[in-house]
Each structure stands twice: as C-alpha cells, then as structure tokens.
C-alpha cells in the first residue's frame, strides 16, 4: 500500500477496526519510519478515546455516582493490600510515601501521641486488609471445594441411575429364573427339547410347560445375538392350526436366555416347537430362517 492508502486506514486503526492484512500493512509502514502517519494515528487515537467521554450521563444521581467510584476504589485498595502482603518492600515504600507528608508547625508531645495512634490505626488497617485477603482466599477455596463436591454429587447421581437400571435387569432375570424353577418342579412338567439347525449349530434350548402353574418358560444357550431390526420368535406348531406364535425374545452372544412364553393352545395337539428369526415386533406366521426345532417329549 502506498502512503495515501495507509493514511486512509488511520481513522479505522484508531477505532481498532482494521482487518488483519490492513493491520500488517500499517505496521510495516510505521516501522519504515513514517512520522506523519505516526503522529496522525496518535491524534486520531485521542479522538477515538474521547468517544468514551460522550457516554457519561449528563444528569446521573450524585449518590449513585459516588457509590460507584467508592466501589472501584475499594477493589483497588484491596489489591494494594494484597500486593503489600505479598511484597512487603513495595508496601513499605507506599507507607513511607504516606508518612513523609510535610508536618505543619512544631510537633508537640500530643502530636507524637497522635502519630502513635495513627500508626496504630494504620497497623490495624493493614491487619484488617490482610484478614480480608485471607477471608477472600478462604472463601474462594470454599467455593472451589463446593464446586468439586457438586460435581461429585452429580457423578454419584448418574451412578445411582445406572445401578437402579442394573438392579431392574437383575430382578427381571431373577423373576424369570424363579418362574423356570417353579415350572421345572411342577408335577405336570412337560419338556420340549429344541435341537440346533444350520444357522446356529452350537445352540440348544428347552421349553418347560406346566398347565397346573399356568406357565411356560423358554431357556436357550448358544444363540447368536439377533441382527438389528430382528428378533427371535418361538412357535408352537399344532396339528390343528399349524404355527402359533408363543413369544419373542432377544439373545446376547455367550449369555443364556430365559423368557416366559405362552402355553401351547389348549386342547390342540402340539407336533413341534421351533425358533425362527423374524422382523422386530414379531409376525403371526413364521417367515425367517429356523434356528431351533424339537418335538414334545412323552407326557
């Protein structure tokens, strides 16, 4: 950029609103030693800074203004005290500055006493400042601990939710096992053993049926997990109506399955029981591959 182009940038530079490439060009120009632009930029910065003056309300309430100025000074004074506590030598210089103000007239004994009192007051002020700083630090530490504890409580809450979910699952599994045990111990127990077919050669299952207990429970092992959007479905295949849906279940790789299922249709002659893989939600008649199949044993 030439000199004139840079000059055109100066008002925007004073507003701190240059784009990065413009800023680089200006810096290079000033580094090259253009005193004219340097002086003009300084002048325009004065103009930009003066914009802040235009913000002062013409008629704000005096008490509020003074209170605000006091609050600002109080923040500064607290920092002066903190800095003094951290660097005694600088603080000593400051106190020296206060102490060396010119005395008027001869200092009498009462003035000496007043000076001692003033020194005492300064000492108390220093102590109060240090205590304030300590309290402030203690407060900040407590806030930090509180934040850490709040975070920990949130973590524990999440763990409780997870634990409740696990307990619910375990209760369901336990209920299924108890139901299976009841059926297995029933005097009218009938077992249907299901043998593996090609899709799951390592699988096996039984269906325990007790009409006295009005319950039938299916237990399987070695079935692979059903693919997404699929479910296993158990069938009673009767002489009268062919396949009758008996229940849906999911399997997890390496985990046994226990699931309550429907009793065989009353009064019908069950020829077979089978497990097929079907769309999620089940179907009324089998459509998918058969994984297990077996005939009821003797009554």
């Amino acid at each position: 950029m030439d000199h004139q182009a840079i000059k055109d940038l100066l008002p925007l530079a004073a507003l701190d609103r240059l784009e990065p490439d413009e800023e680089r060009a200006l810096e290079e120009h000033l580094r090259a030693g253009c005193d004219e632009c340097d002086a003009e930029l300084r002048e325009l910065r004065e103009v930009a800074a003066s914009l802040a003056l235009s913000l002062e309300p013409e008629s704000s309430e005096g008490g509020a203004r003074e209170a605000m100025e006091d609050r600002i000074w109080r923040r500064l004074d607290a920092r002066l005290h903190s800095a003094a506590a951290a660097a005694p030598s600088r603080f000593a210089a400051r106190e020296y500055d206060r102490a060396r103000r010119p005395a008027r007239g001869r200092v009498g004994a009462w003035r000496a006493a007043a000076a001692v009192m003033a020194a005492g007051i300064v000492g108390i002020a220093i102590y109060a400042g240090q205590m304030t700083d300590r309290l402030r630090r203690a407060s900040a530490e407590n806030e930090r601990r509180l934040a850490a504890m709040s975070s920990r409580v949130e973590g524990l809450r999440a763990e409780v939710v997870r634990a409740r979910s696990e307990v619910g699952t375990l209760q369901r599994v336990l209920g299924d096992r108890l139901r299976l045990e009841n059926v297995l111990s029933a005097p009218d127990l009938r077992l249907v053993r299901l043998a593996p077919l090609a899709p799951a050669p390592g699988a096996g299952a039984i269906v325990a049926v007790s009409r006295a207990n009005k319950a039938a429970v299916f237990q399987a092992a070695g079935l692979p997990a059903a693919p997404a959007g699929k479910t296993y479905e158990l069938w009673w295949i009767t002489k009268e109506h062919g396949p009758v849906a008996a229940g849906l279940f999911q399997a997890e790789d390496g985990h046994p399955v226990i699931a309550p299922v429907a009793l065989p249709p009353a009064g019908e002659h069950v020829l077979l029981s089978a497990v097929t893989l079907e769309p999620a939600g089940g179907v009324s008649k089998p459509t998918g591959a058969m994984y297990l199949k077996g005939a009821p044993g003797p009554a």
Partner: protein
Amino acid sequence: MADAQQAMPADRDLVVAMAAGNSEALRSLSARYGRMLAGLARRFLSNESDAEEVVADVLWQAWREAKAFDASRGSVSVWLVTLARSRAIDRLRANRARKPPPAEQPVSEQVPDPALKIHQAQRAQILRTALGKLDSNERAALQLAYFSDLSQSEVAEKLGIPLGTVKTRMRSAMIKLREALAGRQE
C-alpha cells in the same frame, strides 16, 4: 474551568507519582477516570459489577505499569481508555461461558472533587455536541465500530450496507470529529 484545571495535577504527574509508589495518585486517577471508564465498560457488559471490575483491572494495570508509561506515545486518557475497551471486550467474550461474580456491597467514603466533576462534564458536553453534528449514518457506523467487538464486515452486515460504505462512514466520522474537537479546543 481554568481554575479547576490549575488546581489539579496533570494526568502525567499522577502517573509519575504512581510510579514512585504513591497510592494517593492512584486514588486521584481513579476519581478522575473511574466513572468515564465504567461508562465505556458498561457499553460492552450488561453487568455493572463486571464493568467496575474492568475499571479496577485497568487502574491496577496502570498502577503496575506506571513506570513504563511513555507520554510521547499518547496521553494518559488514551492509555486508560484503550486498556478499558480491550479488557471490556475480553471480558465480554469470557462471560459468554462464565456466570457473573456476585455483586459487592456498596460503601461510601470517598469525597469527590466538584471541580473535577465540572471539568469532566464540560468535556463530555463538547464531545456529545460534536457527535450530534455528525451525519446520523456516520454516527451509527462510528458508534457500532467503537462500542462493540464487531469486525468491519460484521458492522456492515448489522447495518445492512456494503463493507466499503462502512469504511467510508467510519473514516468520514472520525475526521469530522477530529475537526470539531480541534475547533473547540482553541
């Protein structure tokens, strides 16, 4: 006003005294510029306590860096205003992911200097008159550029005008303001 100015130490003298460890000079500078800097900070920050904290940060930085202040690079007021604007923008950005600190209890023990207040009010009046004489479009571009953290492009988008027009208006407004202020200072 002339009497008031004569009775007051110059800003530069206050900074020199601060460099020597005189905390009363810091207090005088705070009384002189605190309200104006807070007004600037409040344009960026909705929280009054945040604005006052920015002012305290600025004056504290001035206290710590008083020895390094170079009057040949600009006036004390430019130094303070530049620091305040920069810190207010930083805090505005930081506040977007942080909750505001608790408000402090007000105390009142400072006795304001009426002459100083009159002097500042007069200066402010000159500025407002100068701003009032600007074209309204120029004034809008200038104020949006200075009292926000928007880039040139963002200012253009907000005003719904081309980027080149934004630059022209900012430049023109600054030059007119400089001329107006120069005329008033005579």
